[in-house]
C-alpha cells in the first residue's frame, strides 16, 4: 500500500477526525481534529497496510500571532512498509490542551513533556507531565514567540564599562 492509499484509508475510516491532507516536497501531512488524535494514532498503528509502529517524535510549533496559535506534529514511520507520515493538530492559543498519545506510542512520553515545558501545551492523561529541560521552578515557557530570548548586551570597547557595572561577578 502506498502512502496515498494509507491517507485515503484514514479519510474513509475516520471521517470526523480527518480534516485535510497536503503534500510538500514529497512528505504527506494529514491535519487531524485534536479531539480524535488518539483514535487516529491507534488506527495508524494497528491497521494492516498502515502499521505505523514507530513514532519518531512530536514537534510543537508556535504560530504567534496567527490563530490557531499552536500546532503539534507527530512524525510516524512504518518499518514494515517504509513509509513516513506526519499528523498535524492545531490548538488554540489561550488554553492549548490535547490528549496524550502515550497509550498508543510510549515513545511520545518525553516529547510531550518537552512540548509542555517549552510551549505550555497541556496533555490529558499523561503519566508524568512535568518540566524536563528547564529547572522545576522556572516560570514561563521559553520557546513561545512572545518569550524573550534573554540575551545580554554584547560588550564592545565603547560600552565596556557600562555593561561591566551590571554584570554580577562572583567575589569569593
Amino acid at each position: 500500500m502506498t502512502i496515498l492509499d494509507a491517507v485515503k484509508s484514514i479519510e474513509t475510516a475516520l471521517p470526523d477526525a480527518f480534516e485535510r491532507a497536503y503534500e510538500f516536497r514529497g512528505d504527506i501531512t494529514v491535519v487531524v481534529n485534536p479531539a480524535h488524535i488518539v483514535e487516529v494514532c491507534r488506527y495508524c498503528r494497528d491497521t494492516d497496510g498502515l502499521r505505523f509502529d514507530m513514532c519518531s517524535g512530536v514537534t510543537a510549533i508556535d504560530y504567534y500571532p496567527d490563530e490557531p496559535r499552536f500546532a503539534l506534529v507527530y512524525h510516524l514511520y512504518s518499518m514494515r512498509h517504509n513509509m513516513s507520515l506526519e499528523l498535524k493538530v492545531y490548538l488554540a492559543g489561550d488554553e492549548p490542551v490535547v490528549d496524550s498519545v502515550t497509550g498508543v506510542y510510549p515513545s511520545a512520553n518525553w516529547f510531550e513533556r518537552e512540548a509542555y515545558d517549552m510551549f505550555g501545551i497541556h496533555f490529558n492523561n499523561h503519566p508524568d507531565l512535568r518540566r524536563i529541560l528547564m529547572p522545576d521552578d522556572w516560570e514561563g515557557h521559553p520557546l513561545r514567540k512572545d518569550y524573550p530570548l534573554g540575551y545580554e548586551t554584547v560588550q564592545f570597547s565603547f560600552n565596556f564599562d557600562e555593561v561591566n557595572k551590571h554584570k554580577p561577578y562572583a567575589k569569593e
Partner: protein
Amino acid sequence: MGVTQKLGDMGVVTLRLEDAVNWARTRAMWPMLFGLACCAIEMMSAQASNYDMSRFGMELMRPSPRQSDLMIVAGRLSRKMAPVLRQLYDQMPEPKWVLSMGDCASCGGIFNNYAIVQGVDEIVPVDVYVAGCPPRPEQLIHGILTLHERVKHERITDWA
C-alpha cells in the same frame, strides 16, 4: 657561597618557604573532572597520549572535589547546573583555582540566551580564561602553564 655551599655539601638545600610551597602546588595540581560539553572532549584529548597533560603533574582527574585543586570548567554552564557548580566549588578545599575553558565558560560563547550563564565568573571567581571554541589541547595546556606561572609568583602575604 658561604653557608649555602657548606649546607649543600652536607645534603641540605635551603630555599624560601614560598618557593617550596609554590613548587609543590604547581607540580602536582590535580584537576577536577568538570567537563560539561564539547570542551570536555578536547580536555579528554589533552589528557590522552597525543597532548599529554600528565607531564605537568595532572595525571589524575579526580571526580571528587575534596581531592582536587583545580576546577577546569569545560563547556557551557546552563542555569539549571549553576547551583551545582557553586556547591562543588564550595566543597573544594583551599588552595583552589578555577580555569574557565572555552568561550562558553568565559563569556557565554555563541549562546547569548536565557538558558546559559554568560560567563562562569558570575558564579565562581576565575583565575585563567582560555579562549576557543573548543580550544585546542595546546591552548588548554598554555592556559594551565599560565596558571602555574601565576601560582609561582604567589607570596606569603597572599596566604596569611
